[in-house]
């Protein structure tokens, strides 16, 4: 049976790997290709690159990082950040991405997802959803790297994303992101329970138990992690071994 996936997320800013807290206060944590090489060697199941500055500037550095990584890491690569058009997707795929993540543009222009799915197939298109808890909307979707409130409820949006044909959802809690306090499990659970496509939990992992909870309580198909790989002595190998000991079906 299909294995649960352990997925490091690499955030990129001006060609460097960075990590912040609640989508702010980013710290430089290294050269992205070097970081990717380490995760590959540790047999991470997949890698996600998200360019957090791509909305604002030249994207050639992102392409170079993807190309370099794809040339030596023979594993699935998902890339996103500032993807606005079919041609953006095409260029990323051409540079070595296997899947492309759409976030802000999916909210602003849902037909982009539909069109992209028709051209590239649903398994190539992932929709990334950033969520913050607000009084008015509960779990509310935010765009533009978490800076713009949309008034959309996360579950409603996730259901629509599935209808548009996306092959996967990456659900990130802005409140938890970078805090190392664990995933927003209620959020993960409600999305997983109500869509038929795979869901990757993201934002907040502080220890290996949090990853386990993402799978066993949240029901996610894959769990992503960032901070604990950069700032603690945990790594992908330890995460996999831990999963084995608690009986989660992972790759040997």
């Amino acid at each position, binding site marked *: 049976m*299909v294995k649960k996936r352990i997925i490091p997320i690499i955030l990129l800013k001006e060609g460097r790997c960075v990590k912040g807290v609640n989508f702010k206060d980013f710290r430089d944590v290294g050269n992205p290709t070097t970081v990717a090489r380490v995760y590959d060697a540790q047999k991470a199941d997949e890698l996600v690159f998200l360019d957090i500055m791509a909305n604002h500037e030249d994207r050639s550095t992102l392409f170079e990082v993807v190309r370099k990584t794809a040339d030596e890491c*023979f594993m699935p690569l998902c890339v996103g950040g500032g993807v606005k058009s079919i041609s953006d997707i095409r260029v990323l795929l051409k540079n070595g991405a*296997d899947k492309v993540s759409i976030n802000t543009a999916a909210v602003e222009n849902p037909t982009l997802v539909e069109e992209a799915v028709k051209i590239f*197939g649903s398994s*190539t298109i992932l929709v990334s959803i950033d969520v913050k808890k607000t009084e008015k909307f509960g779990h509310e979707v935010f765009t533009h790297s978490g800076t713009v409130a949309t008034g959309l409820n996360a579950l409603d949006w996730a259901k629509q994303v599935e209808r548009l044909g996306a*092959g996967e959802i990456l659900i990130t809690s802005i409140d938890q992101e970078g805090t190392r306090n664990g995933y927003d499990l209620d959020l993960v659970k409600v999305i997983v329970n*109500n*869509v038929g496509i*795979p869901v990757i939990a993201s934002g907040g992992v502080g220890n290996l138990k949090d990853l386990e909870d993402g799978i066993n309580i949240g029901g996610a198909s894959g769990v992503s992690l960032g901070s604990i790989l950069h700032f603690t002595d945990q790594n992908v190998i330890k995460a996999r071994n831990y999963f084995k000991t608690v009986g989660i079906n992972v*790759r040997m």
Partner: protein
Amino acid sequence: MIIVINYGMGNVRSVAKAIESLGEEVIVSENPNDLRKADRIVLPGVGSFGKGICNLKDKGFLEVLKEEVLIKKKPFLGICLGMQLLAKNSTENGFHEGLGWVPFEVRKFEFTNFAGSMKFNILKVPHMGWNDISFNENCVLFKRTNKKACFYFVHSYYLNISENNKEFIVATCDYGLPFVAAIQKDNIFATQFHPEKSQRDGLNILSNFIDYQYQ
């Protein structure tokens, strides 16, 4: 020299780079005539079945492929959509005829949960991620493959298993039901999983394909 066919369907670059990393000369080509110079041919592919067949036709690959693979028996490897296109037909977005090189039909994973409206307990589609396979140890593609090896799959459609196609199946996988993970018919090999994305175990498959000689 290996030709990786570029027919506008998905990431041919990864396949080429993976083969290159094994020390082989690779050319990514959209020119059907290049197939005549090739020692081996790889047909990768991500995307929809109908568009895949259409692109092969429009770019003029159909006749050359038949000649080089079916008549001259050049070693051929289809990957993912590149395997599905070899089948008789597919029901992806309507009914489409395939190349018909092997007697399979391409069908969609569909799992319904009758117990309730919650989708939590049903299998998610696409089938996405790493999965185990059962393989025929006598097939050259799986030489030196560890029994516990896992491979990376991304697909919503699969090749069916039936009495009249069993002889061509060299590996199966399970996702709610058993389905075809790899096939071989003489010099024709194909995998549903992505060897170019399956780290060391995947590279081993590609390496076995490179070493294979048709006799």
